[in-house]
């Protein structure tokens, strides 16, 4: 009897210790995580000189005057937050939707159907995934330039239909989570294949889609090099490209304004992330699960 209570209390003690450890480690990591955001935020309120003298300081002598000045610098230097936001939004949203939808479709084609070239095709996707991006950017730019399609936002959107990484992930996910019985029973009910995909498979893949959508969105939003050389018309520039222009006048870099620009750039991402993360965090109960 007493033995049992000792055991119970020791289990409870271990439980508490574990909890404390979890909280301590998590809080340390959270603080680490917030560090770059806090710095970016704080630096938006600093003058260039204050940033130069100490990038990591959290205080500023005249925070609001500096913020106003940084905002003015931004606006006088081809940085149009609303145009940039709109362009970034169009590119990221469209390419994310194309990316996750067509990747799911392709992954479904590989997982659910048996066709002759299937293995060759999925092998090819994995190989494509391994092509270093440095390699393709040069050829891609030359091609777009020759076609005269620079400054065309769709050149940054349509290629995301073929996103091998996402296909690969979706395939891994479907292999673990797709029960063919559900598909079969839908077929018996007379549903067409495309409808089965849209109405049954896509909802099933929600957690995977949400995960990939976040990564695709972030990747597209932060993409700098390609937009930088493709989008030369200032009405087409994305936010990161505009931030790069703040490096601006030779020998005179407005650091405070750059951090404000970076902060403006990252803000919408945080919103999008908060919106999508609920699918990851809450955990969407899956319909049919292979155990």
């Amino acid at each position, binding site marked *: 009897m007493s033995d049992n209570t000792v055991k119970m209390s020791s289990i409870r003690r271990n439980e508490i210790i574990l*909890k404390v450890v*979890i*909280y301590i480690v*998590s809080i340390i*990591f*959270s603080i680490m995580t*917030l560090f*770059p*955001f806090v710095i*970016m935020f704080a630096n938006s309120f600093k003058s260039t000189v204050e940033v130069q003298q*100490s990038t*990591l300081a959290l205080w500023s002598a005249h925070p609001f005057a500096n913020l106003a000045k940084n905002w003015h610098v931004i606006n006088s230097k081809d940085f149009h937050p609303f145009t940039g936001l709109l362009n970034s939004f169009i590119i990221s949203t469209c390419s994310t939707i194309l990316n996750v939808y067509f990747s799911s*479709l392709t992954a479904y*084609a590989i997982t*659910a*159907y*048996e*066709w*002759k070239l*299937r293995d060759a*095709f999925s092998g090819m996707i*994995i190989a494509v995934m*391994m*092509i*270093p991006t*440095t*390699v*393709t*950017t*040069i*050829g*891609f730019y*030359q*091609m777009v330039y020759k076609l005269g399609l620079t400054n065309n936002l769709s050149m940054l959107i*349509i*290629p995301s*239909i*073929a996103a091998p990484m996402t296909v*690969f*992930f979706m395939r*891994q*996910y479907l292999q*673990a*989570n797709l029960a063919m019985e559900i598909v079969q029973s839908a077929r018996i009910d007379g549903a067409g*294949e495309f409808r089965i995909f849209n109405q049954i498979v896509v909802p099933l893949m929600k*957690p*995977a889609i949400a*995960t990939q959508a976040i*990564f695709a969105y*972030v990747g597209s939003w*932060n993409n700098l090099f390609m937009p930088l050389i493709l989008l030369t018309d200032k009405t087409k520039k994305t936010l990161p490209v505009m931030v790069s222009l703040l490096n601006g006048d030779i020998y005179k870099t407005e650091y405070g304004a750059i951090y404000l620009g*970076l902060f403006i750039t990252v803000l919408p991402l945080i919103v999008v*992330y*908060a919106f999508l*993360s609920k699918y*990851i*965090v809450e955990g969407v109960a*899956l319909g049919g699960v*292979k*155990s």
Partner: protein
Amino acid sequence: MRNKKIVDYAKFGYLFSIPFILSFCIFTLYPVIYTFVIGFTNLKGAGNTEWQFLPSVGKNLFQNFIDVLTSKTFHKAFRNTWIIWIINFIPQLGFALLFTAWFTDKRTKVKGTGLFKILFYMPNIITAATMAILFNKLFGYPKGAINDIIILLNPAKGAYNFNAHEWPVKLIIAFVQFFQWYGNTMVYLIAGVIGISPEVFEAAEIDGANRVQTFFKITIPCIRQIMLFTLVTSLIGGLNMFDIPQLYIGTDANNAGLTTNMYIRNQAFSGSYMYNRSAAASVILFIIIVALSSILFYILRDKDEAKLKKLKKQELRAAKKGF
């Protein structure tokens, strides 16, 4: 009747893959083929568009490949890339697994896991460039946050020049890489665990499995596919590492942070515009990644599925014979 259905469905397999194939052929294939071809030519110099295959100018067809493979700098870059990737990946996967275990465990009622899950991914939404620059300031010499602390603790010793020495540079780059990606890996793993049926865990609990046992015997095998994914993508990402080392240190500190991808870029864009050598180096990198990933896939392949496939094939053959 049954056979006819199979043929029907196969059609959808092709149909649903068309968008991917089209987009790939238009936007990726041409640049890739272009790169492969250039690796065997004498194309160099900015603004130059004329090139010949190496044998037609009296050189070995593989000269560019030989140049790259015998280059000391490439060796160093290759070694660095592995070292930095490994130093970053072990803790990355370790912490991601740890947090996954903690945050998906229904028994330890930890509050605020939702918040932590969101927070931990956040470093991934800042561009690598910004991150590299902030860390560069953090480890600044002789003035910088870390050095300020060092001086405060031990005024006699003075500031330490982190960015002039080989190992500190590698460790810092690996840390930044870890810091940016552990949350991403964690999100993948959690998505995998969420996909596991809750009944499995309930059954394990009823069977009296403790937390550690459940995790290693149930959770990990169930998310093996996702772990394979994170391993492969991290490997690919790691071998392609560019932004963080480039902006943190570049070629300084005696190439301490030089990666293969930086080497490729330097061949093409640091003054001599050796597109041919750069292309050859990327082909080499490509082959290495393909080889490694194939090995990984082979080791971690789903054995049951492979068996099943074999069985099905046999069945199909038998059916055909019968027909």
